[in-house]
C-alpha cells in the first residue's frame, strides 16, 4: 500500500518509474504488451523496406535505405531491452512473435510493390509513428521514455528522407510521378488507421492516459497528423486521396471522410496481404540462424570456463 502510494505520487507528479520501483501488475503488463508490440513492429517493419535494398535505384538511395532498415533493427534492440527491464526475455518475445501470438503494427502487412513505397512509408508511416511516439518520450516508465527519445530522433530523420524520395519522384518523369501518387494513394488511409480506433471505441486508452503512458487521444493525434500532411502534400505536388479533406474554420480542424475500418479489421485479424509472409520471413531467419546462436552460446560458455580455470 505504501508502494502503491509512492507509485501514485510519482505518476501524479509526472515523474518516472524505474525498473527497481514497485509498480502495479496491470501497469507492468500494459507496458510489456505495448513495448514488445512496438519492438516487434520495428523488427517486422524492416521487411517491407528491406525488400528494396538490393534494388534501390541509386547508390545514394541504397545507402540511405540500408542505414534506415538497420536503424530499425537498432530500435528493436533498444525496445526489447526496455521490455527486458520489466522481466520478460527477448527469446520469449521472439517466440511469441514467431508463433503468431504477439501483435505488431498492422501497417507492415501491406506489400511494397514499388520504390515509391519507400517514400510513402517514410513520409506517412514514419510520420504517423512519430506523431504517436513523440508523446511517449515522456512516458512514465523511464527505460521506455528514454528509448523513445533516441528512436524519435532517428525517425524524424527517416521521415524527412521519405519526403525527399517522394519529392524527387513527384518532380521526376511522368512515370515516377505516377508511382509516387499511387504509393500515397495506397498508404494514406492505412497510415491514418495507425492511430487506432476512434476515441469512443478505444477502451484501453483511459487507463493508459491515467498512467501517463499515453498522452493524447487517438483522434487528437490523427487530427494533428493530417494537419501536418496537408501543407507537405502541397509542396510535394501530390494529392491526398480524400475528396472531403478540408479545413473547417468553425471546428478549427480538418474535416475528413469517415475512415472505412473494414479493411483495418481484416488486416488486424490476420487477413492482410502479407501477414503470413511477414511471420514466415521472421521464422525463417530465426531458424536459419539457430545453429549460429547455438555456436555463439557454446563458445561463450567454453570461454567462461577457460577463464575460470585460468583464474
Amino acid at each position, binding site marked *: 500500500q505504501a508502494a502503491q502510494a509512492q507509485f501514485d505520487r510519482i505518476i501524479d507528479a509526472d515523474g518516472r518509474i524505474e525498473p527497481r520501483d514497485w509498480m502495479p501488475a496491470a501497469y507492468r503488463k500494459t507496458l510489456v504488451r505495448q513495448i514488445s508490440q512496438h519492438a516487434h513492429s520495428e523488427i517486422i517493419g524492416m521487411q517491407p523496406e528491406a525488400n528494396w535494398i538490393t534494388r534501390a535505384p*541509386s547508390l545514394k538511395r541504397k*545507402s540511405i535505405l540500408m542505414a534506415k532498415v538497420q536503424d530499425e533493427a537498432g530500435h528493436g*534492440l533498444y525496445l526489447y531491452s526496455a521490455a527486458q527491464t520489466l522481466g520478460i526475455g527477448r527469446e520469449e518475445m521472439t517466440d511469441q512473435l514467431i508463433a503468431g501470438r504477439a501483435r505488431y503494427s498492422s501497417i507492415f502487412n501491406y506489400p511494397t510493390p514499388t520504390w515509391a513505397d519507400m517514400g510513402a512509408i517514410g513520409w506517412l508511416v514514419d510520420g504517423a509513428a512519430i506523431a504517436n511516439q513523440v508523446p511517449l518520450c515522456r512516458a512514465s516508465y523511464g527505460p521506455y521514455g528514454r528509448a523513445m527519445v533516441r528512436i524519435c530522433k532517428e525517425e524524424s530523420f527517416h521521415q524527412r528522407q521519405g519526403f525527399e524520395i517522394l519529392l524527387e519522384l513527384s518532380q521526376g518523369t511522368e512515370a515516377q510521378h505516377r508511382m509516387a501518387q499511387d504509393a500515397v494513394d495506397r498508404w494514406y488511409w492505412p497510415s491514418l488507421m495507425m492511430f487506432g480506433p476512434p476515441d469512443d471505441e478505444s477502451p484501453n486508452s483511459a487507463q493508459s492516459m491515467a498512467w501517463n503512458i499515453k498522452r493524447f487521444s487517438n483522434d487528437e493525434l490523427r487530427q494533428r497528423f493530417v494537419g501536418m500532411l496537408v501543407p507537405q502534400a502541397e509542396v510535394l505536388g501530390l494529392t491526398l486521396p480524400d475528396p472531403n479533406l478540408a479545413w473547417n474554420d468553425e471546428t478549427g480542424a480538418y474535416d475528413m471522410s469517415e475512415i472505412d475500418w473494414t479493411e483495418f479489421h481484416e488486416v488486424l485479424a490476420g487477413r492482410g496481404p502479407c501477414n503470413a509472409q511477414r511471420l514466415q520471413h521472421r521464422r525463417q531467419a530465426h531458424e536459419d540462424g539457430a545453429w549460429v546462436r547455438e555456436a555463439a552460446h*557454446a563458445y561463450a560458455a567454453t570461454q567462461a570456463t577457460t577463464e575460470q580455470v585460468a583464474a
Partner: protein
Amino acid sequence: TPDVAAYALWLGDDALVLAQQLGWWISRAPELEEDVALGNIGLDVLGHARSFLRYAGTADGRSEDDLAYWRDEPAFRCAWLFQAPNGHFGDTIARQLVASAFQLELYRRLAGSADPALAAIATKSVKEVAYHLDHATQWILRLAGGTELSRERIERSLTDVWPLVDELFRDEPVIDRLEGIAVRPSTLREPVLGRIQAILDAADLAMPQVAPSMAGGRRGMHSSRLGYLLAEMQVLARAHPGASW
C-alpha cells in the same frame, strides 16, 4: 588516366558487389545484433565502393550511378571472391574474412599511393576494414569453437570459398603501368595469407588445401552469380532511363 580509372574500378566493383550481397542480410541475420553489424559493414563497404567509382568515373565523366547501373556484366572488374554467394551465415563470414583481410592489407598499402585520391580513399577506409576483419575473426572463433555442427560448417565454408582466393593476388598488365600508384596484387599474397593463417591458427582450423580457380574477374569474365546479382541490382534504374532519384 584511364589506367588509374581501370584500377579504381577493380576496387570499386569489388566493394560494390560485396555491399550488394551484405545488404541482403538486413532482416535475415541470425540475431538482431548481426542485422545491425552486417548492415554497418555493408554500409561501410558501399561507401568505399562509391568513393572508388566516383573517382573512376572522373576519367570519362561518368557518375557512380552510371557505373553501377548502366554497365553490363563484361564491363565489371570485380574478383570472383566478392561474387561468391551469401549462402548461410558461415559462408558469408568465410567470404568476409578473406575480403576484409585482403582489403585491409591493400588499403594500408594504398594509403601511401602516389595518387592522392586513391591514397585518401584508402586512408579513410582502412580503419573501417580493420573493424570488419575483427568482426569476421570473432565469428570464425565462435563458429570453430562453438558446436560440432558449426565447426563442420565453417570448415566447409572456408574450403568452398578458397578456390577464389588466388585470383586476388594475380597481376594484370595494367598494374605494370601503375608503379607507385596501384598496389601490386602479387605482393599482397604473403601478408594477406599470413593474417588469415594467424586467425585460422587461433581457431584451430587448417588452411584449406584446394586447387585455385582460374576465375577472370579483372578481365570481365565472371562467375555465374554476377549476372543474377546485376539483374536484380539494376532492374529499377534501367526501367527508368534518364530518371533521377
